[in-house]
């Protein structure tokens, strides 16, 4: 028993003298509480919606005001006609549109019924379901108010249409997320481990003292993972098509191009991480902590970015997978072309060039 106590005491000493582990042991729970408690939430607030009011009468104005007053929605756009809606949805400007047909108010008073059209972007089915539920709730409340103040019952119905994903399948949302995560993990972690392994074994020393240029060392380390990642990409797409009935609506070429850019970015990150790490364990830890966590939290497939505090929304701009996620959704699900994704492609492209350049510079051609 005494021996056990002594051993435990020793183990405590080891733990407290290892700063990095300590940081993780205490830092992580605190970070998690802060994140999940305040920053991340599955609650949907401030969703951007578009209103199209063909009628412009008292009823519509009141209802629109009620909708706008709710925390759940931000009326981003008030359009004169619905023809521009398609573009808005494609660009992702709006998550939902509420359209009031002509003579809405008079129809309601004379027939006791009126229909408002609700169109939601269902590429994130959870989001779409939630916000259409919210708006339906508001309409029902409004109905109750109206009925209380008048003799005959009045009912406004919502006709809901789900865009891009009418069946509300989860796959269109999580497959892109999985793609981003898998590619990121494989490229970042495996690359950094491969380079650090060479350092750990000592073979890096021998390679450095040779005519073999350091840049070739880097390229030869990255190449297998580039090829494997592209293969993985095709496997995921194939499996999604066959088992999840998820086809690529847009250009496959564009999708592959965007993916390769993302892969290159992830590889560069892996390269950068390998420079500081001395052991394979450290490299893996850095990759997991440094990349997987932000990727999972800030890409936008688990938690909507729009709902996060401003600071975190800014931070998410630095996470490459966030941009890749957008590319996949736009090309794969919405069938959009280059014009819709040029911004994301530019960003990814710049990230990979930048990271590769600084990694190359920092790559040590000497030991420390």
């Amino acid at each position, binding site marked *: 028993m005494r021996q056990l106590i002594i051993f435990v005491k020793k183990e405590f000493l080891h733990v407290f003298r290892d700063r990095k582990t300590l940081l993780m042991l205490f830092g992580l729970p605190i970070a998690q509480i802060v994140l999940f408690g305040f920053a991340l939430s599955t609650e949907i607030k401030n969703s951007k919606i578009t209103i199209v009011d063909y009628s412009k009468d008292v009823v519509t104005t009141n209802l629109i005001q009620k909708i706008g007053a709710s925390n759940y929605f931000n009326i981003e756009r008030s359009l004169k006609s619905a023809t521009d809606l398609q573009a808005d949805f494609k660009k992702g400007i709006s998550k939902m549109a509420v359209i009031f047909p002509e003579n809405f108010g008079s129809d309601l008073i004379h027939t006791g019924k009126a229909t408002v059209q609700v169109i939601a972007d269902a590429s994130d089915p959870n989001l779409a379901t939630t916000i259409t539920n919210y708006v339906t709730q508001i309409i029902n409340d409004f109905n109750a108010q109206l009925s209380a103040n008048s003799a005959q019952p009045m009912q406004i119905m919502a006709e809901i249409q789900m865009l891009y994903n009418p069946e509300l399948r989860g796959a269109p949302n999580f497959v892109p997320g999985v793609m981003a995560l898998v590619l990121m993990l494989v490229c970042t972690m495996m690359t950094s481990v491969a380079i650090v392994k060479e350092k750990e*074994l*000592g*073979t890096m*020393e*021998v*390679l*450095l*003292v*040779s*005519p*073999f240029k350091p840049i070739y060392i880097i390229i030869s380390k990255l190449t297998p993972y580039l090829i494997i990642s592209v293969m993985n990409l095709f496997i995921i797409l194939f499996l999604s098509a066959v088992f999840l009935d998820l086809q690529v609506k847009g250009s496959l070429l564009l999708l592959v191009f965007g993916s390769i850019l993302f892969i290159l970015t992830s590889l560069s990150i892996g390269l950068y991480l390998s420079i500081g790490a001395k052991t394979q364990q450290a490299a893996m830890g850095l990759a997991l902590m440094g990349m997987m966590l932000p990727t999972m939290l800030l890409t936008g497939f688990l938690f909507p970015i729009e709902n996060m505090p401003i600071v975190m929304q800014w931070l998410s701009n630095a996470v490459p997978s966030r941009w890749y996620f957008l590319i996949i959704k736009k090309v794969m699900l919405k069938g959009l072309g280059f014009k819709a994704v040029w911004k994301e492609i530019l960003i990814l492209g710049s990230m990979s060039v930048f990271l590769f350049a600084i990694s190359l510079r920092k790559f040590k*051609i*000497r*030991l*420390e």
Partner: protein
Amino acid sequence: MLAVKDISFEVNKAEIFGLIGPDGAGKTTLFRILTTLLIADEGRATVNGLDVIKDYRRIRNSVGYMPGRFSLYQDLSIEENLSFFATVFGTTIKENYNLIKDIYQQIEPFKTRRAGKLSGGMKQKLALCCALIHKPDVLFLDEPTTGVDVVSRKEFWEMLKRLKAQGITILVSTPYMDEANLCDRIGLIQKGEILSIDTPGKIVQSFPEQLYAVKSANTFKLLHDVRSYANTKSCFAFGDALHVTFKEKKDEGILPYLHDKGHADVVMQPIPPSIEDCFIHLLKD
């Protein structure tokens, strides 16, 4: 932490220069500076006339390096390792085969075996082949014989002698004092500083006093008694004998002193010092 300090020395062409010293003496640090892997804080160094900082690329193209741990690819076979390094150096196995033939033939029967599964002696031979494959002018071998069995060690030094005969300059480090005698010149290093540089013969000659070997049946007791003798300057155990030096040049009194202490059959004779004796002597200063 100071790893090496004020080290100045020269190695001549086709010489086997031994850097002799225990773990932590600074041997590996020195090697890494010379092979351009580390930059010294002060001072200069050149290899084959090339500066280790400015001309590091050219040095890296022309030297052979065998670092402390067996830095080969454990999951590649002997053959695969060798052809990889040949390619890295822009040559083929065939081109310089006659240089490594003697060594390679000993491991050739196992050429498809993975490097990780080789014995210490075989790994060492493979590593040497990989370091030689591009016919370097200078060979840097950092503790190549550590952890290797006695027989392989002897074979290894034979190989080094044959390489020297082909005109290759060899800088080798080792903690084993007995290997010092196999070098043309040696540098004794401890705690980052060089204690002495010269041929083994001259270092031995420079030992200041006459060294004696004293033996008796009970070595441990002898050690204690000789140390407590007034005229003893230094006394260290060397196997079955003690190596002793005296303060006064001629000592007459020790044998009767030991006899009194109960040692019946003491034998004392003058002996030439070994490198280890010299190292110990230099350490004391």
